[in-house]
Every structure is written in structure tokens, then in C-alpha cells.
């Protein structure tokens, strides 16, 4: 900064050498009042954050100013109290700082630190998903780890009777050994905590819970043949004798286990398939909450555009699931989730409407005779929808792994929106212009080729980014 000032003062002196009264004095600008400007006001905050982040990246952990520690893998995701918005903003801030520093050397250098940050965030997210999707590792594991035979829960509150039963049953299930039960019961008896009759009752209860556990697992892994067996057996076992029920349960359980070990992969796949099937059945139910999207789907000719329809459904479904998940984990509030989905639906409506409007003008064009026009229209809107969504994903996906120092995920969205809007205006004008001037009908494929060519040329010259060019090409190819 000192250097700069020296330089500027030299400049002033130079100019002063031929005394200029009219030359504006720097002091004059100082008495302007200060007021907030979004452009400049944010800088200090961002720099603060960015500096903190930058330091952390380089060394160990400095004072955690804004809960930035949540970025670290050790922190439980569930305990974070920052919003996802802040995440990205911090990320942006970091990348801004990086960008400024890196641009000193060369503008094309990839900010590895930035990449690291992005990957950190991503890997944290991934970890959460995997942990929670993996239903074989039930939460019950955690309860047993620390205190296998203890009579307290993790948080120190004493166990209730149900808890004890549950605990025992789970233990037996997991260790696949009824000896566990015997051990525990004998311990309890020895301690005088329970009477003989109470032990019997306990056995029954444990059997019940165990049965439930087994049947639940069986459901998930499609143990159709084994379910009735284990059910009936355990039911039979419930009646008087001590040994029989346990043996029966054990048998059923062992069967289940065997099958499990033998055809683990198969059952898993079945499970997944079953999940998918559920999805498909569900989807129309859920999607009816999205009237516009539903209408769009309905309007697609199932035979011709089955693939597109399926894709659309999948995309929509996935989006909905993720919103649900985010609500579940508290990343966003339910209201936000709902409003987002509503927004989505509205946007679809708007896009469809625009497409339809555009295609209405097509009706008059000689190129499109009336009957095939309708299906063309629908094809267009489908393709455009699909392409639009794909593009959104593509752009967003790319931007998080972007080498470009920007790395802001909200920017691509605003930018592609702007580009879409611009392209739409262009097409509108071209159609109108050609109609008026009675020139040759506006040739879409020629336009597309031209745009592709230009986009590539611009990428070469550094006027467009590769992703931008791809997005633009995609938009045009979807028309």
C-alpha cells in the first residue's frame, strides 16, 4: 500500500511540475458522507472470513470465528447450527480471496485450496448420506458400544423395563446366541433383581421383540419364504416351553442369517429394486402435489416419449427426495422446502407456458403443419424441460468442481437464467422478424450450427468459459 501511495504522489508531483490549478485535489473527495453500498460494505466481512479460512487451511485451527469448524469432518453434521446459505457464502468468500491472490500471478491457475474446500464440504455431505442411508447399521449399535451389559442408557438415565427387553433382544439378535439371554437372566436372578416368574415373563417379552426384529429385517431383505416360517415357528414357540420358542426363533433367525450370508448381494439388489418399485408407485401420488408438473407429464405421449417421461419423473422424484432429506436433517426448514418445491412447480408452469406460447406462433408457420404441430409442441416442451434441468444440473455440478476461481453456485444459476432469457428473446425476435419481412423461414438448425461455431470460437479466445459454451449449446439443441 505504501508503494502505491508513493507512486500516486509521484504522479501528483509530476503533474504539479506544470502547476495546474484545475487539477482535482485528492483531499476534496474525503468529505463525502459514508453510506452503505452492497458492493463495498461486504468486503471487510468477506475478507475477515476469508482470512480466517485461509489461515486455517494453511495451518491448524485458529479461533473459530463463525462456526467455521463445522467444515471439519470431526464435527457432527447434525449439531451444526449454520445454514446452508452461509456455507456457500463462506465458500464464496474464500474463493474470492483466493482469486484475488491468484490473479496476481495468472488468471488461469486453479485454486487447489478452493477445490479442497469444496471437496471438504462435499465429502462431509457424502458422509452424512451414507451413514444414514445404511440401514443395516442401525442406531442401536451406538447404544451397545459403550455399555454392553450396563443398565443405563447413554445419557445416564436408568433403563425402563421396555428398554431392558429391547436391549436384550437386540443383543441376542446381533450375536445370534440365545446364550446371551441365559447369561443376562441368570445375572439378574443372581442379583435378586427379578424373580423366576418375572424371568419367564421377560423371556416371553424378549422373544416377542426378537421376533419383531427378525421380521423387520426379513421384510427389508425380502425373506418371503422365511418370514412365515419364522413367524409360525416363533408363534409356536411362544406357547409354554422355555427352550422351544428360543430354539425356534433361533432357527428362523439362523435361516435368515444363512440366506443373508449366502445371497447377500442378491437381497440387497432386491431391496433396492423394491425401493425403486416403491418409488414408481409412489411417484404419481406425490407428484400430484405438483399440478403443473403433473399436467406436463400427462401431456407427454407415453408411447413416444417414454424415456423422456421417465427421466423427468426421476429427476423430479430425486429433487423431492432431497428436499425431504434436507428438511429431515434440519438443513432447511419445512416451510423453505415447501416454498422451494412450489417455486419449482411454478417455474415449470412458466416454462411450459412460454414454450406453448412460442409454439403457438409456430402454428402459423408453413414449416409445421397442424396435426404434427401438437406433438412437436409437447416434444419441445418436454425436451426443453429435460434439457433445462439437465443443464441446471450440469452447470451446477460443473461449477462446484470448477477450476475457475469463482466457485459460487448461486452465480451460475443467475447467469444461466440470464442467458436463457437472452436466447429466448433472440428466438422470439428472429421468428417475428422473419415473418414480417417475409424472408425465408427461420432456420433453426442453421442457427444452431452458427451458435455452436461461435461458442467454440469464443471459448478459444477466452470470451466464454467452456461450461458456459456447453450450456448455451445445450439450450439451443433442446429447442
Amino acid at each position, binding site marked *: 500500500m505504501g508503494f502505491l501511495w508513493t507512486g500516486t504522489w509521484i504522479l501528483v508531483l509530476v503533474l504539479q511540475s506544470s502547476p495546474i490549478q484545475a487539477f482535482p485535489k485528492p483531499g476534496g473527495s474525503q468529505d463525502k458522507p*459514508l453510506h452503505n453500498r452492497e458492493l463495498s460494505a461486504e468486503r*471487510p466481512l468477506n475478507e475477515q472470513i476469508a482470512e480466517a479460512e485461509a489461515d486455517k487451511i494453511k495451518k491448524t485451527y485458529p479461533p473459530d470465528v463463525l462456526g467455521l469448524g463445522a467444515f471439519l469432518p470431526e464435527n457432527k453434521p447434525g449439531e451444526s447450527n449454520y445454514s446452508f446459505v452461509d456455507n456457500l457464502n463462506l465458500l464464496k468468500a474464500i474463493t474470492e480471496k483466493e482469486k484475488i491472490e491468484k490473479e496476481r500471478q495468472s488468471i488461469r491457475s486453479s485454486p487447489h485450496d478452493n477445490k479442497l474446500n469444496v471437496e471438504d464440504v462435499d465429502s462431509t455431505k457424502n458422509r452424512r448420506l451414507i451413514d444414514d442411508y445404511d440401514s443395516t447399521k442401525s442406531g442401536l449399535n451406538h447404544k451397545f458400544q459403550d455399555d454392553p451389559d450396563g443398565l443405563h442408557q447413554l445419557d445416564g438415565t436408568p433403563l425402563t423395563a421396555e428398554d431392558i427387553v429391547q436391549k436384550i433382544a437386540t443383543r441376542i439378535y446381533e450375536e445370534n446366541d440365545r446364550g446371551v439371554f441365559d447369561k443376562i437372566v441368570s445375572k439378574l436372578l443372581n442379583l435378586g433383581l427379578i424373580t423366576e416368574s418375572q424371568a419367564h415373563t421377560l423371556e416371553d417379552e424378549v422373544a416377542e421383540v426378537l421376533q419383531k426384529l427378525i421380521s423387520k429385517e426379513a421384510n427389508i431383505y425380502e425373506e418371503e419364504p422365511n418370514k412365515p416360517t419364522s413367524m409360525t415357528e416363533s408363534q409356536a414357540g411362544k406357547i409354554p416351553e422355555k427352550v422351544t420358542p428360543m430354539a425356534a426363533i433361533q432357527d428362523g433367525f439362523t435361516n435368515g442369517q444363512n440366506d443373508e450370508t449366502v445371497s447377500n448381494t442378491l437381497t440387497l439388489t432386491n431391496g433396492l429394486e423394491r425401493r425403486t418399485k416403491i418409488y414408481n408407485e409412489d411417484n404419481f401420488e406425490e407428484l400430484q402435489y405438483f399440478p403443473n408438473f403433473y399436467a406436463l407429464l400427462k401431456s407427454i405421449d407415453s408411447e413416444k416419449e417414454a424415456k423422456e417421461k421417465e427421466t423427468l419423473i426421476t429427476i423430479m422424484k430425486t429433487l423431492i427426495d432431497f428436499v425431504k432429506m434436507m428438511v429431515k436433517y434440519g438443513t432447511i426448514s419445512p416451510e423453505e422446502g415447501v416454498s422451494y418445491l412450489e417455486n419449482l412447480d411454478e417455474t415449470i408452469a412458466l416454462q411450459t407456458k412460454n414454450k406453448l406460447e412460442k409454439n403457438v406462433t409456430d402454428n402459423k408457420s408453413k414449416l409445421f403443419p397442424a396435426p404434427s404441430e401438437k406433438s412437436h409442441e409437447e416434444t419441445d416442451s418436454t425436451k426443453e424441460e429435460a434439457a433445462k434441468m439437465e443443464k441446471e444440473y450440469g452447470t451446477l455440478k460443473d461449477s462446484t468442481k470448477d477450476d475457475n476461481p*469463482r466457485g459460487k453456485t448461486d452465480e451460475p444459476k443467475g447467469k444461466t437464467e440470464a442467458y436463457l432469457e437472452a436466447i429466448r428473446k433472440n428466438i422470439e425476435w428472429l421468428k417475428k422478424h422473419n415473418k414480417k419481412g417475409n424472408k425465408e423461414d427461420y432456420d433453426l438448425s442453421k442457427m444452431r450450427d452458427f451458435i455452436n461455431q461461435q461458442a467454440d470460437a469464443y471459448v478459444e479466445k477466452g470470451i466464454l468459459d467452456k461450461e458456459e459454451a456447453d450450456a448455451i449449446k445445450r439450450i439451443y439443441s433442446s429447442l
Partner: protein
Amino acid sequence: MAARGGRALLALCAALAACGWLLGAGAQEPGAPAAGMRRRRRLQQEDGISFEYHRYPELREALVSVWLQCTAISRIYTVGRSFEGRELLVIELSDNPGVHEPGEPEFKYIGNMHGNEAVGRELLIFLAQYLCNEYQKGNETIVKLIHNTRIHIMPSLNPDGFEKAASQPGELKDWFVGRSNAQGIDLNRNFPDLDRIVYVNEKEGGPNNHLLKNLKKIVDQNTKLAPETKAVIHWIMDIPFVLSANLHGGDLVANYPYDETRSGSAHEYSSCPDDTIFQSLARAYSSFNPPMSDPNRPPCRKNDDDSSFVDGTTNGAAWYSVPGGMQDFNYLSSNCFEITVELSCEKFPPEETLKSYWEDNKNSLISYLEQIHRGVKGFVRDLQGNPIANATISVEGIDHDVTSAKDGDYWRLLAPGNYKLTASAPGYLAITKKVAVPYSPAVGVDFELESFSERKEEEKEELMEWWKMMSETLNF
């Protein structure tokens, strides 16, 4: 589609999409967590023109959007890179972008040559969007302009300086920070000082136009020139620009050549041969800008000396002497007439004021564009109809010539009056024509030049004819 690529991948993309859309949705809600949101996206105030400052990525984006909206009449290109590697982007608007149509004059606007003088940069972005919008709406003035002119708009000649200036925290922008390029060079003092040469030539005899032949080589070898300066010089040499304006900030006036005083004093009126037309051109800008042309406007700063300002215009040297500036370089090395427009008392005013600057300047920007269609224009060809490039067109009484471009086309800006124009080229016989020039539009005057050899042939033929006639009459 992606469905096959793995559900996980699609799922991740969808998650990101969801998050991204959420943010978008969040940003649109009032009272949404605005903390940390870098900028208000799309203040759709008027026809897709967002009146906010554009950093380099946004600048690029804005130009790309204009191109996408008006692909038929626009083209983006770059004349080179700044010191820190940012592209010096230009958007060209014309009915046949990328092509010089014979007879179609070329115009340029350059802004933000001093990085902290930000209004010009933004106005040029708004102008590009405005021209595109108006063209599509069928605005006759704009349509005519775009069909008959090739308009080049460079919003920023010093993007590095702008980034530095814009990065300053707080409202107050320093008077100097970001002014020069990344090397600390003031670009408007970095051009070869042709004024000095001209002043010497005036005394001792010599040309005052198209000085420095073989310019490209000299330019490339000159180590004192900033990359931005070099890029612009090449640009000027490559395209036969006719009219130009260079946008600045820090005051409110339209400034015309010469910028450097003859005597070397601090300020004295130093007129160039085309003083009359320049005054007219400068006035064409200032008169449509209410504060600029307001005679009762107080000076920008209390002790400023604006005694040289007349109707919002001023001779450069009368205001203060500037050596090595881009404006005079244009005039003395090429056919291009350039003025310098100071757009704002404050060099980097608050973002909220940008809209009003646009309102103040949009008519001026268009009016100045239209000035290119004034004076005289035409073609210089030989007797076979072939274009003669680099022919000289001189005007009696004005000691400044212009030359014809590759297609033999020329444009000579002139104030209304009666003139004698002479076209000449080496190996050709010069032709002089009388022209009456109105305020506008430009009068078309073509020249068909006869080469010396043709004339010799003609004379020989004439002689033979005479001899034949004589011999027949006198019977020898």
C-alpha cells in the same frame, strides 16, 4: 440421459440443484438471509438492464447476454489482454457483425481507461444492452444506426485497475487507487506523444497526420508501452475508425484536441486544424446531457477552474495539458477523430446513482453516435473501378488529411460549409471537387482517378489522332 450414469451422481447433482435453487428462492424472498449474498441479482429495472456495477465476470456475462439476445447484429471479440491477463473485451454491433462493409463508417467507444473512473464502463454496458433491446423493438433511429454504422464498444480498457478500485472497502474511493494499470502506468499518458512531433512540424514544415509509419513494429518493440496501450494501438491501425469517444470521470465536460499545449505551459487553448468540427462534435454530446451543458452548474469542486468550459465543452489544452493521451494519438496517427468525455464529478460514485447517470447520458451517447454520418464520404477508385486504398483526401483550408481504407472508402467529418476536396494517390492524377456540406447527412462524393500511365497513353493517342488528321488534310 443421466439416469444411466448412476443414481448417486444424479442424486448429487439434484442435491446441488436443489440447494442452488433454494438459494435463489431464498434470495427472492424479502428478509431472506441476505448476509453474505454477494450482490442483488438482476435488478430488472428496465428491459433487462441492471443498474449495478459489473466486475470482470459480470462484465463478460453482460456482454455475452447481449450477444445471445442479438446474435444477428452483434459479435464479441477481444483486442488483447491486460497486464493481469483479463481480456480487453469489445462488443460490436452492426447489421453484418465481423465484416467491414465498404462505405460503412466505423465507430468506437472506450471506457474506464482509468480504472477508478467507473461510470463510463457501466454506461457502455448499459448502452450495449440498450442498443440491442431498442433494435429488437424496432426503434427507427437505432435500427438505422446499426444498419449504417459498425459500432464497437469497449467498456473497459483497464479492467485490472477497475478491480483494484472496486475492491476498496467503504463508500469513499480514493482519487487515485485503481487509476493506472496493474503496472502503475497511467494509460492516458502512455501513448506515443505525437503532439510534440506535430508542433515541431508546424514550425519547420511536415505532416500532421498519419505520423509514425511502420507503427506496428515500433509499437511492439517499445518496452515502455503497457499491454493495454499496445492493444489499442493495434486496434486503431487495423480498423479504419472514423469517430470515437473516450469516457472518463472526475469532472463533467466534453474535451476535444489538442490536449497538450504548444508552448508547454500549464494551460492554453491549443486548437487543432479541425477545431470547428470538433467543437460541434463535443457539443453534440454535451448538449444532450443536462448537467453537463448547464451553464449555471457550479464546478465539481470549490476551487476548480472551469473557465475554459463553454456549453459543456472544452479544448483539452485550455483546461490542462495532457501529453501522451489517447485522444490526440487517434487524431495524429489515424483518420479517427476522438473526444474525451468526463462523465461525473465523482470518479466512482455509489451504485444507486448509476441509473441517473444512464438517464443523463443515454441521449448524448446516441447523439454522438449519429455524428459519424456527417461531412463528406465516398469512394476513391481508378478508371477501371478498382478501389484505391490509402489515397489522400485533403480539404482546402484545413491542414489535416484523411486516407481511404482498403475498399477505397473514405469519410471526412466536416462542419456545414462549402469545401474543395482533393483526392490524390501516388501514380495518379489528383482530382478536386467542390462540395456543399449540410449539417447532416453526409454528402457522397466519389473520385475516379486516372493514373499517370493512362494519361500518357491518352496523350499519345491524341497526338496520333492529330497527326493523322494533319496528314490527311495536308495530304502527306
